[in-house]
């Protein structure tokens, strides 16, 4: 599969797809998209890259072991869930910043939650796929 065209294409595809996945993630609250889909997109992006350049190269680009993304994501999600608890609101209640951010819109705990989901999905999917490719 390591044809030149594929390699060249995937060099550009990776950043594009990653960007797209973040875009999907952020707009999730208003338009179709969200953490799950975004995470899957990002995983596919990395996967395509690994097909073109081999696992080693992809792992080099990611730098950290994708497995670590799972606990980080979980902590983010749980943190977003229990954060309201510390200001006296019930757990999982949505909290929002007063001001709107540019491009993103209003930012609230739901967004952090979704980012957590996003990271967990990337972590889990890549762990699964990489550990398979690794031993094939």
């Amino acid at each position: 599969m390591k044809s030149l065209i594929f390699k060249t294409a995937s060099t550009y595809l990776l950043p594009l797809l990653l960007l797209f996945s973040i875009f999907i993630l952020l707009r999730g609250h208003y338009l179709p998209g969200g953490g799950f889909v975004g995470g899957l997109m990002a995983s596919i992006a990395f996967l395509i890259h690994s097909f073109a350049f081999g696992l080693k190269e992809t792992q080099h680009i990611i730098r950290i072991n994708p497995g670590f993304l799972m606990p980080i994501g979980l902590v983010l999600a749980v943190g977003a869930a229990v954060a309201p608890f510390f200001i006296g609101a019930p757990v999982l209640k949505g909290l929002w910043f007063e001001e709107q951010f540019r491009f993103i819109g209003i930012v609230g705990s739901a967004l952090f939650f979704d980012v957590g989901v996003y990271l967990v999905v990337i972590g889990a999917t890549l762990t699964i796929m990489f550990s398979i490719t690794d031993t094939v």
Partner: protein
Amino acid sequence: MLIAVILGFIFALLVPFFSRFFKKAIPFIFPILPISLFIYFVGFLGEIKSAAHQLYRYEWVPSIGVDLSFRLDGLSLLFALMITGIGALVFVYTANYLKDHEYLDRFYGYLSMFMASMLGVVLSDNLMTMFIFWELTSISSYFLIGFNNNDPASRKSALTALSITGFGGLAMLSGIVILQSVGGSYSFTELLNSSEVIKSSSSYGWIIALLFIGAFTKSAQFPFHFWLPGAMKAPTPVSTYLHSATMVKAGIYLLARFTPLLGDTFWWNGTLVTVGAITMVYAAIHSVFRVDLKSILAYSTISALGILVFLIGIGTEKALLGAGIFILAHALYKAALFLITGIIDHETGSRDVSKLAGLQQVMMPVAIAGFIAALSSAGVPFLLGFISKEVMYEATLDLGQWAIILTVLLVLTKVGILVAGFWAGIKPFIGNLPSEFNKAHLPSPLLWFPPLLLGVLSLGFGIFPSLMTESLIQPVFSSMSGADTVIQLKLWHGFNLVLLLSVLTLVTGGLLYWFLIPSEARFQKTLRYESISPQNIIEGGSNLFGHFARIWTKFFQNGYLRNYVITILAFLTLLMSFRLFGGVNIHLDWDQISPVSSYEIIVVVLMIISILFAITTNSRTVAIVALGVVGFANCLFFVFYSAPDLAMTQFSIDTLTVLLFMLVLLKLPKNRSFSSKGMKIRDAVLSLLFGVLIAILTLEVFEEPSSSEISKYYADNAYILAKGRNVVNVILVDYRGFDTMVETVVLVIAAVGVYSLMKLDLNPSKKDS
């Protein structure tokens, strides 16, 4: 009172923790418990005489009417005294009998647990509490019978005893529950007031039948008697304590206790007399065919228990009085005989009555105890056994038309018991000492003192019945019969029919003892009839049950995954089709159905084709591609019908799955066709049926008007409450955020599972082992 009952449990609990610190002192510490309890209960003798009964209540589970209430009246006091008194002797005796045994501490633990539960049974006023203690006695008895846990026979006997008594216990529990629903209370004292209501209720038959099963199993009545001879595998102190003096009398206690409440009806009396008579005669005959001392005593105990049931069944005042005295008399002499057997076994290593003889030359005090006990069991004058026998004969002779036959049965039984008693208490001691027992010598006083004391008590009560008449027997009689007739016990009744019968019994028994030499050969002859004994029938039944269970399990749990699936789904399909054919009307509302456009038809056809391809193909690649197509077609449906989120997710997932399959499965061996054509057809038929049913079911559900209140609430408030415009996403991250969080955890678990499966080094050589 509560402390008195649970002290034994506390002791038993402490044993494992503290015994190692004073192992040597155990024999001295433990007997303190029953002795002090005995003294405590003796203190009640005076009080019970004056008051009818005393109640002690401690709340336990008030919401269902279960409390720890204890009722002390004549009957329970008699039992409490027997339990603690004989308990004390047994505790002392055990110290020497099991000297230096590895598990002596454990043994004492079981014994105290048993004692406490037995006290609980006889003292409880609340029937539910009584049931709990009742089961505890079964359990501690299980431990004690199986005490020699290296011996398979011992374990088997323990299990038999536990299953029989446990079964009875459950029957009794149902009886108690029905009783409560009729009488309105678990408290015996309160139930007494509604005796008439219970007797006339329609469930009366059930109540007494279930209680009878409980009492008969516990007290080894025919046909449940066989666990008792088996229980003789236990060390002798256990046989003495549990299986002659106390536990087996729990059933008798139950019947005696319920006599004023449920008794005096045709079914009550008839059943008890019949069962009691069968048991006593059957066991008496059995006992003279045995050669093992413990076996003889076991059958004679069953016979005595039969007499007690029989007497309670007759239910006249005389009979109940006879039962009351006989409980005491039997406990005194039978416990003594068992203890003596234990000594003989301990010193000579044999329990074969045909070999034992002449031991009085070496162990005089034991012989004296044996003589007294044997004579008391025979009912020779000046012993307690005589008084009880006189009262019994009086009771049966008073019965009018039934008098003759019942008296004859009783005399017959008494003769058997006499012979058994003589064999156990006299035969081993007289005659010439065989050379093989030369080494036998008088054991420590700790062993021979208990039976001798019991003998002395038999003698004392026999000569001076007034010692116990007023203080003990009168309250016992009152609480059993509910009447307050003043009773008189005399040693000498004058020359009358009763005395004649006594003499007849003695003479017949004496002659039988003289001529009937116990022999192994005769015992062997009886074995021929084993196959029709109740033991064999019940054991056969339980074996059959086990066999059936094995076949059943083998049939369903056969290790083939698809057979499980087929069983479950075939059953489900059957059930559903039964429901569907039971009249389902499907009215399709054509207005609801959306029109079909051409591109949709293309997708549907594509999907059907790829499903069929995936099923029929033998090539993996084709199957994977078909799978991918199915997934993408699915994705298109989501696109058509306003679910962009779903479409995106499905698309990504589908891509990943196909990639995964390609990565992994192409390396597998070539696909082979495993199944035969017949199996394929069977599976296909089942699958099609299943599919059709699911389709019909879907149609049916689809017909129901959908309630969209939740969706409406979510959608209406999506922006107002959660500041989001994509409702699906808002549900995921906000409304049902917790679900999503857990879901991510599931995903993490799957990833960790995959990771460890792939990285884990499973040693391939393991498959060979």
